[in-house]
């Protein structure tokens, strides 16, 4: 490991090899509170409801077919059938009918959960290359 100090003394520079970084880190991170109300909750809220504002949904819940999407997806989410969502055919059908009216918003060959022009970030919007995957 090599250590440098800039001329002003303000900036430190460390060069490390792979071996230098082999040992696991002893830096301590604070444990995350799963019920932190400030944190972005992801797709499912702590109370089990769907977070319609999740970036992972792209614009599905907010576009022209938003209400149909919400009904279909809610039905699916709360479905207790053996084949999950099997009783939600009507809702999905009406959602599909709506989406067919907007072919440039909802590309027709894509499935119900994928978005139109934007790639959904699977976990959070902080993933590195989401810089171009805007919603």
């Amino acid at each position, binding site marked *: 490991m090599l250590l440098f100090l800039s001329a002003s003394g303000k900036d430190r520079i460390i060069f490390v090899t792979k071996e230098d970084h082999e040992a696991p880190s002893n830096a301590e991170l604070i444990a995350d509170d799963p019920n932190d109300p400030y944190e972005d909750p992801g797709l499912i809220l702590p109370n089990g409801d769907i977070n319609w*504002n999740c970036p992972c949904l792209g614009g599905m819940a907010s576009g022209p077919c938003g209400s149909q999407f919400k009904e279909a997806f809610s039905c699916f989410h709360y479905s207790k059938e053996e084949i999950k969502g099997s009783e939600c055919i009507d809702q999905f059908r009406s959602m599909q009918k709506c989406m067919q009216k907007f072919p440039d918003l909802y590309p027709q060959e894509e499935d119900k959960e994928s978005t139109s022009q934007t790639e959904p970030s699977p976990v959070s919007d902080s993933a590195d290359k989401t810089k171009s995957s805007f919603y």
Partner: protein
Amino acid sequence: MLKCNTVCKRFAPLVRASSTVCRQNVRRAGLNNVRTPTCVPVARMSTEPLGGGGDNLKYALLVGAAFVGSLTYAVVTLKGDHQRSVKRMEDISTRLQKSTLHIQSAPPALSKPKPEAAPSAEQSSPPPEAAAPDAETTGKPSADSTSPSHKLPSHTPYLLIGGGTASFAAARSIRARDPGAKVLIVTDEPDLPYMRPPLSKELWFSDDPSVTETLRFKQWNGKERSIYFQPPSFYINPEDLDSAENGGVAVLTSKKVVHMDVRGNKVKLDDDTEISYDKCLIATGGIPRSLQVLERSGEEVMKRTTLFRKIEDFKSLDKVSRSVNSITIIGGGFLGSELACALGRKSTESGLEVVQMFPEKGNMGKVLPEYLSNWTTEKVKKEGVKIISEALVKSVACKDDKLEIQLKDGRLVRTDHIVAAVGLEPNVDLAKSAGLEVDSDFGGYRVNAELQARSNIWVAGDAACFYDIRLGRRRVEHHDHAVVSGRLAGENMTGASKPYWHQSMFWSDLGPDVGYEAIGIVDSSLPTVGVFAKATAKDTPKAATEKSGTGIRSESETEDTATSPVASATPAPAVEHKDDYGKGVIFYLRDKVVVGIILWNVFNRMPIARKIIKDGEEHADLNEVAKLFNIHED
């Protein structure tokens, strides 16, 4: 009538007690058709015994009460009428003003002088100001509807001022959380909401010759997309907003909000339309700063200057870059450096000279620590850019169709076109009329941690100076911040009360060797600790750092964190190493706490960086923290 009711309520017990007696009296007085006993209790207050005298008094009082009642009713009605007539007059005069404005602003082809009366049927004679002939204004040529304002909604539950990234993110958020929400976006640009970063990056790398029309670019994953967040079919027409069954997002383009009435919860547009709202978001962004020397230099210079921010600026700069020999970019920050690299790349084919000048020592001098800024500058030079650092512009003149930039140190630069990328002036035009506070340190509207300025008014994006619980009061001009703050404002407008908590990130790409992502406060005046990957233990990056001219002084080969400075450095033989500052992570410290992190050519690690900032802990050994990033892996 109301007066009677209140009076009657008070006398209700009396009424009940005396109702039978009343009825008897009324019958006796022969006033069968008179008003119901409700008003009679007033008469009952008299202590006179029932009888002939009492009857007369009763009658008198009844008439009196009737008179008072009808008087009240008359006054109320007249007042209402007066108000209605006043409003009518206002409506008519505004409509006339609007039609005059239409005439003044309508393209010459449309207006035909016709000595007609004013458009409204009710008005008999046009007021003196509207002497200009009234023209039949057909719909505006553009696809966006700016038809007569009386079809536009006069009220919208959610009003978003500004049509940029923050506004769109808020619209999305509101629609997701409030089913059937009706959202109206008002923007002074002619375009639907679009994202800005590709204007100085991806769009310039496109091979498509029609890119200035399509505005489509290739993302990092190979998929193509438009810079517009959504195609026009996503939005509904403003005229249809009121009647839309499931609500929607409507965009009113080319209209500017010029006045805000906070107490009345309404705004006025530049065509005098008034729109009232329940909740309002101000996301007005900003306008590019200009340089005083440029402003003072006259029209010939300004004609050859671009202040870069919008789609039209991209289109015009693209055109210019194909027709001139030399472009000079003033400014060494994100925008300036990105444009320089983008134009520099093109310059290899076209022979265009690209010059970039700035007061700092190196590119991104205000963001990157000096050694890294210098290293980056060398990379920018490799992209074909002529860098003039430590340059302060003294004056600019136009001579023989060429621009002459005179620097304070005497150097002279001759060029054909100037692009000024010297910062953003947040747009706080509405502060005065709305009575909103403007921050004197950072500029922008001052809002609290929940992005609220006043009741029912939120601010997001470039124009918001907000309180970051973790990092303190700040104002951030990055794309992801616009998304994050816009989304948060939308959440809070629909009832959440969440503070700014999810830290936004930003990034920049300056050619094939320099790509970084950053989060938090990344200010080169802060002390930094940079941890970079070295290929093997045998490499000596010292030479490369010497070469970059930083004058590094101390060196120690040890596992401990040595801090003692050593004797003056002696230049080592120049050795090129491919992976010097190739990749690593840089921590920015404030009072020993990490407040900012740059991920230098390492990707997919933002969540860890975000966590470290969120924790806000003091870490004794930042090398240990750096281990968390696995910089040696891909």
